């Protein structure tokens, strides 16, 4: 398929612009500051629309089919949220204008609802993504120990953690210490007790962890950390398993980030925009990014706190995304949130039980909203990649692969609560078929997918000879 540039024809244009109703004037900008060339495509509206519609058809979203991407919570994106987010009163509101009480109210109420859901005392909606929330959380940890005059340099992360955890730590000037998981896939309490010392600022935990397993000793873990004067950070990416069932604050969590584009149904957008709100206990509230929203004498206002870490993004956060999360929580309501977690966990355990005799399940225990299979015992040199690519031919988006790193050839499966029993049964049948193909027709797997506009792409070539833009010459 051609690029938009290859469809360009001189003199074409895809919009009609307003007329100039004031006098032109020459020489406003001096020649030194003027640009000569402007290389952009010239296409008419019809060609433009056909091009991008054709591109959209070469994509696969949750609206197209089952998308069990572990740790991403690819639940259905409610269409009513899209309509609400497009309301003129939200879309056209300038961040620096007065008379924005609607926006401030929505953000304030969302912060409160997130507090209630997690048990935290205060929330900020400023971070634009989960990793951004992690960075914000680590900045808060840094500020906390700075204020106390304690120079703690170490952040502990389990070996199953998402790469953003240690990467965020480094961005804040911390050193990372990896904790090996025990044979149940959980934190080894003895190991933790061994490495803990006065240099440890915090531990970053994903709960349930990336194996889909709940840390059964969480209360002891947070106790050990607090006794050491350390903080406990929770990566809330997997919050879908806990909604309405338990509160992170009750586990002893001090800081948490949430992913609105996972747990709270806002669309993933092909890689963003997301939103990664951060919640904290009372003692950390003063460090939250500025400004904070307050409600006084019937009005919402923005104030700046002197102890704040500063700002992590211009203005207030991805407001357009928070609108959708707000709508979702109001739609689902107090009665619905727990049902979400219950159905997400039931769906995952259902798949796990049905697949554990077809593939290798390294941690054969109760899971929460996701579980991990391994590529062990796959015959004929069939790899996890092969399984994933073959799923595409069956109209299913592959699960997360090769993560977490502690499982060989990991396949992380998260169905979410918005999938029906029939969809799950179809997935089980397909996974069974593919396992049989691995046995009898492995070449189908090695060369999959066959049903897409392109076959398996050469990633090595793309990395050795990076071609990152089109050139007309």
């Amino acid at each position, binding site marked *: 398929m051609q690029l938009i540039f290859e469809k360009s024809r001189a003199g074409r244009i895809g919009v009609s612009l307003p007329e100039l109703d004031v006098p032109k004037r020459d020489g406003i900008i001096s020649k030194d500051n003027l640009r000569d060339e402007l290389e952009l495509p010239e296409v008419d509206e019809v060609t433009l629309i056909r091009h991008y519609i054709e591109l959209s058809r070469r994509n696969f979203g949750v609206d197209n089919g089952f998308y069990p991407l572990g740790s991403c919570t690819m639940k259905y994106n409610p269409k009513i949220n899209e309509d609400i987010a497009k309301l003129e009163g939200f879309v056209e509101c300038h961040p620096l204008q007065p008379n924005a009480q609607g926006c401030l109210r929505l953000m304030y109420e969302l912060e409160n609802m997130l507090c209630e859901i997690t048990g935290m005392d205060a929330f900020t909606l400023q971070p634009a993504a989960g990793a951004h929330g992690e960075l914000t959380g680590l900045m808060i940890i840094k500020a906390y120990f700075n204020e106390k005059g304690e120079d703690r340099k170490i952040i502990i992360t389990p070996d199953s953690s998402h790469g953003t955890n240690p990467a965020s730590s480094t961005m804040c000037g911390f050193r990372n210490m990896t904790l090996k998981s025990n044979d149940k896939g959980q934190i080894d309490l003895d190991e933790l007790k061994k490495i803990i010392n006065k240099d440890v600022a915090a531990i970053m935990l994903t709960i349930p962890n990336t194996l889909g397993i709940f840390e059964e000793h969480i209360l002891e873990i947070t106790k050990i950390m607090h006794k050491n004067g350390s903080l406990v950070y929770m990566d809330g990416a997997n919050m879908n398993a806990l909604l309405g069932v338990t509160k992170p604050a009750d586990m002893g969590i001090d800081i948490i980030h949430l992913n609105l584009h996972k747990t709270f149904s806002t669309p993933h957008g092909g890689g963003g925009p997301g939103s990664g709100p951060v919640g904290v206990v009372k003692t950390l509230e003063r460090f939250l990014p500025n400004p904070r929203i307050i409600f006084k004498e019937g009005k919402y206002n923005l104030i700046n706190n002197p102890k704040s870490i500063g700002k992590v993004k211009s203005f207030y956060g991805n407001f357009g995304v928070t609108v959708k999360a707000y709508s979702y929580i109001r739609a689902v309501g107090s009665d619905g949130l727990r049902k979400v977690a219950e159905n997400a966990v039931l769906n995952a355990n259902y798949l796990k039980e049905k697949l554990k005799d077809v593939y290798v399940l390294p941690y054969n225990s109760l899971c929460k909203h996701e579980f991990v299979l391994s590529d062990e015992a796959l015959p004929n040199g069939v790899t996890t990649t092969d399984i994933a690519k073959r799923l595409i031919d069956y109209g299913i988006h592959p699960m997360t692969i*090769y993560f977490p790193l502690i499982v060989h050839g990991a396949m992380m499966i998260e169905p979410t609560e918005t999938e029906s029993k029939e969809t799950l049964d179809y997935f089980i049948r397909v996974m069974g078929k593919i396992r049989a193909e691995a046995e009898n027709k492995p070449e189908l797997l090695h060369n999959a997918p066959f049903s897409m506009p392109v076959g398996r792409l050469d*990633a*090595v070539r793309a990395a050795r000879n990076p071609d990152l833009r089109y050139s007309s010459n």
Partner: protein
Amino acid sequence: MENPRELKYTKEHEWIRIEQDIGIVGITDFAQKQLTDIVFVELPEKGKRVEQGKQIATIESVKSVSDVFSPVSGEVLEVNNELGEKPEIINQDPYGKGWIVKLKIENKEEIERLMSAEEYENFLKEHK
């Protein structure tokens, strides 16, 4: 591929060829297989001093990034600039054209801490 007998080896899968007080360093056949297709090599600057066991270069494949650790302490004399254009030489010829750096060896005693080809092969067997 056989591990050449005249080379010395490290536990991190580097080899070193000793030519008087020059050491030529690369990674073993086992290492290049583990990495799969190499796409980029980050080389040190000439004149840089390294310590035994410390990072001297970085090798990227599509799926991973690995450090190359120096088998001995010394000064970087030369780097294999061919790897800029064709990093895959390391996959194709890890013991020959796929050499990575040439070092001026500081302390010949450090060589004694390294493994012979047989010892390296045993080490690989044990750690499968």
